[in-house]
């Protein structure tokens, strides 16, 4: 696939992205701050929004996925880059102690490992992920998600259930 770099100045591109998202999806919030398009969406339209970004607007890169544990809900942030200085930041909130959200690996393949890490540290289950194994913690014996607020640090836990 031939890669096409986005055209136009930063302002026109940001405007184009914002309009593109607004025209196609129901967004909770949308605004441009600096060089960033900030979107807040509901979890069910998230993959549609990212598909638009990738297929319609030609934003090629998913930089990272961030998870914040708000005790009772999880805030996920997807940051997209267009390689010319513009960013798109998509925020969504999942309710519940056992969060489930659609995987975006089919849209951005790089999300594979980002989602594995989010699962490892926070226990967020990504529906449709091809291989949701843990990245850092050992797969078989460690039964915790250490970045959760409910996780208690204890020196004994390191060896708990470890062979």
């Amino acid at each position: 696939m031939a890669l096409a770099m986005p055209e136009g100045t930063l302002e026109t591109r940001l405007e184009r992205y914002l309009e593109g998202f607004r025209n196609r999806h129901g967004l909770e919030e949308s605004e441009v701050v600096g060089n960033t398009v900030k979107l807040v969406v509901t979890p069910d339209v998230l993959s549609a929004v990212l598909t638009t970004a990738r297929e319609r607007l030609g934003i090629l890169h998913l930089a990272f996925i961030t998870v914040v544990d708000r005790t009772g809900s999880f805030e996920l942030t997807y940051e997209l880059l267009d390689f010319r200085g513009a960013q798109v930041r998509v925020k969504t909130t999942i309710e519940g102690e056992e969060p489930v959200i659609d995987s975006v690996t089919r849209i951005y393949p790089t999300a594979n490992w980002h989602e594995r890490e989010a699962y490892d540290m926070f226990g967020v289950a990504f529906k449709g992920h091809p291989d949701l194994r843990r990245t850092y913690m050992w797969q078989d014996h460690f039964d915790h998600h250490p970045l959760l607020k409910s996780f208690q640090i204890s020196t004994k836990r390191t060896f708990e259930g470890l062979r």
Partner: protein
Amino acid sequence: MGVMQKFNEPNVLTTSSDKLFNWARKNSLWPLQFGLACCAIEMMSTGMAHNDLDRFGAGFFTASPRQADVMIVSGTVSTKMAERMTRLYEQMPEPKWVIAMGACAISGGPFLDGYSVLMGADRVIPVDVYVPGCPPRPEALIFGIMTLQKKIERDQQVGYEKPRPALVTEDGEFLEYLPEREYTDISAGKAPRFEGIKSLKRTYVFERKGMPPASQTDVGWIPKEAKQKIKEQQKAEKAAAESNGKADENGSTGENA
């Protein structure tokens, strides 16, 4: 060499095999090329020209555990890394030694209660020398290597059982995480024990209470009282030998008369 030059013609030197082998071993330590965290940077700097670890015969870092003598555990050991570290240690041929470099390798350091950090390399492998610091300066590592050399110098090849770290209590309860348990079962008492291996006991000492600082660093340190006792004994032996000699002389003169 000074001793050699005193001989006027080719000759034979008598020494114990221990002294010979230990001399060879301590002056050609090959550390394993194995860095875990920021201490590894300090370890590299120790090997470079300014500090020059080669002066102590320990400057060649082998990339393979098969040729290594010393493992310098330089940095935080995460629980996942502990398995790999143990495997590397087991792949090293005997005789082998371990230096725990820095606070993390000694106790877990600032990450002590972290969810993924091993609380000291000595939980999985036996450690010979601890070098404190965060990270230790190159001088400290060099001192650690010199201490290890002292320790090797006093090592015995014959009639000596190598101390092993304690991993189970007397009752057979497991104290620590031990990967090799999985496939050898030696510590569980299932596998046959090699003859001559003592029951497992903790061999390393963390502090010697009421002892002078020299006892912490010098491996062959003996208390002052013991030293004095030895001296007195030697003196008494000498005196006895002298008096015996005198008696002999007296006896011989008596015979002559």
